[in-house]
């Protein structure tokens, strides 16, 4: 620590950094979960696109 900083600055910085770190960890976890949801949605979209031609063919034949 330099002379210009008040004593115990390290502890104060550590406390606020801990708060920030907890928030960051939480947001990383939520980001991973959001990415998983996006991936699953993309899978479902592919599934729907694959199914669509056969579905429309079935509808045409029933008419």
């Amino acid at each position: 620590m330099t002379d210009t900083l008040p004593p115990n600055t390290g502890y104060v910085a550590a406390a606020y950094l801990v708060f920030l770190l907890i928030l960051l960890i939480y947001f990383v976890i939520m980001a991973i979960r959001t990415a998983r949801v996006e991936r699953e949605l993309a899978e479902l979209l592919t599934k729907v696109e694959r199914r669509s031609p056969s579905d429309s063919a079935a509808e045409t034949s029933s008419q």
Partner: protein
Amino acid sequence: MPTTKSLYGRRLPGYAIATAIVLTASIALAFFYAPIEVDQGFSQKIFYIHVPLAIVTLGGFVFGGIFGIQYLRSGDTRHDLRSYTAIHQGLIFCIGALITGSIWAKAAWGQWWVWDEPTLVSFLIVFLLYCTYQPLRFSIEDPERQARYAAVFAVVAGVFVPVNFIAVRLASPLIHPRVLGSSGGSLPNDMRIAFYSALLGITLLFITICKYEMASKHSRAQLAALRRSLSEEDDEPAAIRTAAPRIAIK
């Protein structure tokens, strides 16, 4: 097909913006407006993050209990989700309060932890009590029973929190200050403004994160419902055992 209603994310952007503004302002107030305390010096600045975290933690646990009562009365799974989220986030904030408190203790008293101090030990007991909430939920497979037992836990533990708080206030403090008490350390006005703005900021952060978590869980439930409705075999996949509440998608 699942509904496309957004139940939890509706006011989320507004809360997020308010949180960012108030939290930034409160940190600025704590460092640039509130004076340096005479006894503790600069380390007292930890107070503006530690005490709001502790208060919001206990508030979150109490709200978990209130939502638990609402679930037991109505059987509505949305209340179970709210109770679960309030307790889950309360635990995360509790970890923050414990760590920042420990750092403050080291700076102010020269020790990381004081076992003779009722305030500290009772807070640790509350933390350990709520640590059993997730394993309790996980141990019960049936979703309805899981929600019911978790609600009972949330109510009983939620009642314990204020009772414990009052008991600690009545006990004679060793070294932990009673900052907001009628006797002893009442805050000067400039410190009070910084403190209440920090409390508001942390409360808004808690609400925002709770809403974010619930919106995320609801999205995943909607996705699972969509997957089921698109499933060619039409047989539901075996439910994965989880501590999180099951959300009914109509």
